[in-house]
C-alpha cells in the first residue's frame, strides 16, 4: 500500500502540489486524471523519491521512502516499474540493452536467460524482434512501449504508468490497456495510471482520482466520475469548453 500524506511541492514560486492526500490500495488500478501541467508527473516522481517534497511524506508498505538510506531506497525501487512520460530510453544502448539493464545489474541470470526475458516482454508490448534497434530508430509510440517493457522486466509489485497510451494508435492503445489489466489481474500488480485518454480510463480504472490546483478533488469509480455533481470534474470528463475551468492557463 502507498500512502501519500499532505504532499506539497513548489518550483521556485510556482506551487504545483498543495497538500495531496492519497492512498493506493494493493491490487487496485488507480487512474489519475487532471489538466495538463497540474502536476501528475510530479506526483508520480515523488512516489519513488525522484523528487523531494517540500512538506508531507509518502509511505510505501509503511516505510517512509524519504527516511530510508540508499540501499533500502533501492530495495524499495526494485519493487516499482516506472514508465516515463517521455519513455526516457538510454540512447547509448540498443532496445535489448535498455530492457535488460535492470536484470544485468541486479540479477545473476545468464545472457541467454536475459535474452529470453527481453524477447518475452517485447512480445507482450507488441514489438517482437526489435532487440537490435537503437532508440533513435523508433517512433514515439514504439519508444513508449519499449519503456513499458523495461518498466515491467523485473516483474514489479507496483507499476506507475505516465500516459501509457499517448501517441499510440487506437488499436495499440487498446492493447496496452489490455496489458495493464492483465498484469494487474494475473500478477496482482498494483497500478497507478496517469492518462488523458478517457477511453482508457473507462476500461482500465478500478478507481479514478482527479488532481486539480494541487489537490485531489475527486475520488471514485468510473460511474461516479461520469455522474459527479462537481462542476470542475464534470467539465473535465465531458470535455467542455464552457465551465468553471478557463481554457487559458491558470497561474498556480
Amino acid at each position: 500500500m502507498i500512502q501519500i500524506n499532505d504532499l506539497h511541492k513548489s518550483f521556485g514560486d510556482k506551487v504545483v502540489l498543495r497538500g495531496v492526500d492519497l492512498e493506493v490500495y494493493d491490487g487496485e488500478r488507480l487512474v489519475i486524471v487532471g489538466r495538463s501541467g497540474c502536476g501528475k508527473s510530479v506526483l508520480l516522481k515523488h512516489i519513488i523519491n525522484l523528487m523531494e517534497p517540500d512538506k508531507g511524506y509518502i509511505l510505501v508498505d509503511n516505510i517512509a521512502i524519504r527516511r530510508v538510506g540508499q540501499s533500502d531506497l533501492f530495495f524499495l525501487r526494485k519493487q516499482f516499474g516506472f514508465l516515463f512520460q517521455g519513455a526516457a530510453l538510454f540512447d547509448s544502448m540498443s532496445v535489448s540493452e535498455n530492457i535488460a539493464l535492470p536484470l544485468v545489474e541486479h540479477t545473476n541470470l545468464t545472457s541467454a536467460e536475459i535474452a529470453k526475458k527481453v524477447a518475452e516482454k517485447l512480445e507482450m508490448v507488441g514489438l517482437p524482434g526489435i532487440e537490435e534497434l537503437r532508440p533513435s530508430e523508433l517512433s514515439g509510440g514504439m519508444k513508449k512501449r519499449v519503456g513499458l517493457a523495461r518498466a515491467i522486466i523485473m516483474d514489479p509489485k507496483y507499476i506507475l504508468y505516465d500516459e501509457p497510451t499517448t501517441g499510440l494508435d487506437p488499436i495499440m492503445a487498446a492493447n496496452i490497456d489490455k496489458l495493464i489489466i492483465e498484469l494487474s489481474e494475473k500478477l496482482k500488480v498494483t497500478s497507478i495510471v496517469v492518462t488523458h485518454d478517457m477511453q482508457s480510463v473507462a476500461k482500465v480504472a478500478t478507481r479514478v482520482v482527479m488532481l486539480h490546483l494541487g489537490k485531489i478533488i475527486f475520488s471514485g469509480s468510473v460511474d461516479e466520475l461520469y455522474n459527479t455533481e462537481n462542476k470542475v470534474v464534470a467539465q473535465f470528463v465531458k470535455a467542455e469548453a464552457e465551465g468553471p475551468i478557463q481554457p487559458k492557463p491558470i497561474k498556480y
Partner: protein
Amino acid sequence: MTNIVSSLGRTTIAFILEAGAVFIMLGKVSRYLLQLWKNRRLVYEQMMVIGVQSVPLVLFVGVFAGAVASIQTAYQLKGYISYNYLGAATSVAIFIELGPVLTALVIAGRVGASIAAEIGTMKVTEQLDALESLAIDPLRYLAMPRIFSGFFMIPILTILADFVGIMGAYLVAYINLDLAPEIFFGSVKEFFSLLNVFSGLIKAFFFGGTTAIIGCYVGFNTSGGAEGVGQSTIRAFVLSSALILLNDYLLSIILF
C-alpha cells in the same frame, strides 16, 4: 561599496558551497571504487573512450609541442650554451610541464566537455531519473567509471605525449641544426631523472581526475534542455582548464 562587498560575499559563499558539493559527490563516488571489479565492464568502456580514443589527439599535440619546445630552447641557447644540451633542456621541460599540462588541456576539451554533454543530455531527457527508477545509482554507473578512467588514463597518455614530444623535439633539432642523435639523446639521458618524469605523472594524475570530476559534476547539474547542455559543455571546459592551471601552480610549489 556595500553592494560590491555583499555581492563579493555572495559569490564567495556560492563558490564554497559549490566546491563542497563537488567534494560530497567525490566522497560518494569513492565508495564505489571498492566495487571496481564488479563494474569492470563499465570501467573498461570508459578507459577506451577517455584513454584509447584520445591517443591520436595526444600524439598530434605531443609531437608539435615537442617541436616548438625544441625550436624555442634552441633559440634561447644560441650563442650562450652549446646545442649539446638541447636534448636535456627540452626533455626536462616536456617531462615536468609540457607533457602533463598540454595533455590535460586537450583532454579537458575532448573528454571533460564530452562527459558534461553526455551526462547533461541524460539529465535533461530524464535518463538519469530512469537509472534511479531502476535502482541504479548514476554515481556508480556513470561517474565512477569516468572519474577512475580520468585519474588512470591521463598519466598513461602523458607518458605517450612525453615520448612523442621528445621525438618531435629531436626531429626539429635534426632538420634545423643537423644535431646527431647520439648528442641529443645522450644529453637527454645524462640529465634524465625519474623524479622529473614521476612528478609530471603526479600532475597528470590530478589533472585527469579534475577534468573527469568537473565533467561529471557539471553534467549532473545541467538544467534547461539543449541550451543548458551547451552551457554545461562550455562550463566544464572552462572550469577544468582553469583548475588544471591552478593545480599545476599548486603542485609545482609542492613538488619542487
